């Protein structure tokens, strides 16, 4: 992880750590904080705790997003302080709706100049963000809104498994990781498990990202904690609740970063500090899929 972040994330980059509630690479976010990257533009539909931590860590100057909060719990204090009071430094924001953000990645991934959607009518969002623009259909059948492509310098996704080439498979919520990865210049994949290429080839429908576009594969079990990995570990909702108190105050936020990020040398130390019991408590019961027969066509 240290090498991947050092080599592929550069000061001033636009970085997207995607994953909708599911598969959020906290391990990569923490490594970016530890390496004291600066002036990043962070893109993500739901900034979640990871961007609150990264912004508290001072890595970002700008945030591109569509829903800002600690889902089901409350607010993100570090981000709110920077928006509401400009303390300790102002944070530039660029705001869309979910569909707008998904459309931006889609346009970025497909090399299109914009993505058209039926949203934003009679909303104040295009006033707040003039990059959301009303356009006339070239076929004379009405107006839609357009959003510009988003092409991150780096997209980071967490996944259940990949092979050494970076061929990556996911099950459970898919969010917009595929779109964000194809839109990016560089892609880092962080996985629970490294598998043989034969495992990938035995179930090709599950592949969301081909190794062709992947620059680094990092094996980091439990690297998505406190978010979750379908079938492997549950969301650590207790931590999401705890964060509400931590993030309310700049001093407690910084103390948390010191204890859980700066003073640790990586994910292994984080897991040791968390404790085996806490991790074991997140293990779900089993619900395997049925298997399908792809057929042998020699």
């Amino acid at each position, binding site marked *: 992880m240290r090498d991947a972040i050092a080599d592929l994330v550069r000061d001033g980059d636009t970085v997207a750590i995607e994953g909708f509630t599911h598969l959020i690479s906290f391990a990569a976010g923490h490594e970016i904080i530890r390496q004291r990257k600066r002036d990043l533009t962070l893109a993500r539909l739901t900034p979640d705790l990871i961007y609150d931590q990264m912004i508290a860590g001072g890595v970002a100057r700008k945030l591109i997003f569509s829903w800002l909060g600690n889902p089901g719990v409350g607010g993100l204090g570090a981000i709110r302080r920077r928006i509401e009071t400009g303390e300790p430094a102002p944070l530039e924001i660029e705001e869309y709706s979910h569909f707008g953000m998904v459309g931006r990645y889609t346009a970025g991934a497909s090399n299109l100049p914009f993505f058209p959607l039926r*949203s934003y009518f009679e909303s104040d969002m295009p006033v707040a963000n003039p990059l959301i623009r009303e356009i006339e259909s070239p076929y004379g059948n009405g107006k839609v809104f357009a959003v510009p492509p988003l092409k991150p310098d780096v997209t980071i996704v967490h996944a259940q498994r990949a092979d050494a080439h970076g061929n990556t498979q996911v099950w459970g919520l898919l969010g917009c990781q595929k779109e964000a990865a194809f839109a990016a210049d560089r892609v880092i994949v962080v996985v629970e498990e490294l598998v043989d290429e034969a495992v990938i080839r035995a179930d090709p429908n599950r592949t969301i990202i081909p190794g062709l576009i992947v620059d680094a594969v990092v094996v980091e079990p439990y690297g998505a904690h406190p978010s979750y990995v379908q079938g492997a570990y549950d969301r650590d909702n207790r931590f999401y609740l705890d964060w509400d108190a931590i993030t309310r105050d700049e001093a407690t936020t910084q103390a948390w970063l010191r204890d859980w990020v700066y003073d640790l040398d990586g994910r292994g130390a984080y897991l040791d500090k968390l404790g085996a019991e806490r991790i074991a408590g997140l293990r779900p019961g089993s619900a395997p899929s049925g298997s399908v027969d792809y057929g042998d066509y020699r």
Partner: protein
Amino acid sequence: MSETVPASTAAFSKSEMMIVAAARELAGQRVCFVGVGLPNIAVNLAKRTVAPDLELVYEAGVFGAEPARLPLSIGDPTIVTGSIAVVSMYELFSFYLQGGLVDVGFLGAAQIDRFGNINTTVIGDYAHPKTRLPGSGGACEIAINARQIFVIMRQSARSFVERIDFRTSPGNLGGAEKAERIRREQGWLGRGPSVVVTDLGIWHFDENGEMRLDSLHPGATLEEIRATIGWEPRIASSVAVTPAPSGEELRLIRQELDPGGTYTK
């Protein structure tokens, strides 16, 4: 206090009444786009009572969810296991929502006005907000593309306001006539908000597109209604009393949907 509706309020909380009332409004509906928190409980209650065929759509990319526990977040793994389909968010928003398959979209609000326009973005000025709120998420496109919108929120003078600070999600704009014309001309699939369920009562929208109180929850009073709203509200000529939650509805909420009382205390 002659307008007080006599009832025993000891047996259930205001939040429980609100959830039950919202669930009952879903009778006969087929496809519902679910939000986190209160909508989540209401919709899951409806599926176990008045709308067993309801298909739950979650913006995280799930169609036909059968959550075995109350989802604690909008992307909880329990909405995946046993669902009909897990799709990318692109498919969810493009094909399911914008394609016109969603009958009811459930929204919450920090501020709402008499025409059902919703603010979830900021209190105060956008560039220098007094309070920064979460923003749209999927709400703006849900408000435009779901066939109708249900709102569930607690009533207070801070949230039911004459003028919202930011219009995140359009409702009936400045009134029904203009809203209907704009929706038709611009090809919106949705006809806008149809019901607002609060902790005090049930509001529908009249011919002018304005909220009208049609039902008071047991124990709630018109004084309370007026004290928690920023405009002179329209009240139906004969206001009904919302039937109290049944024993079975309360059992489902307390034992199956929210045993920890996270949302219903």
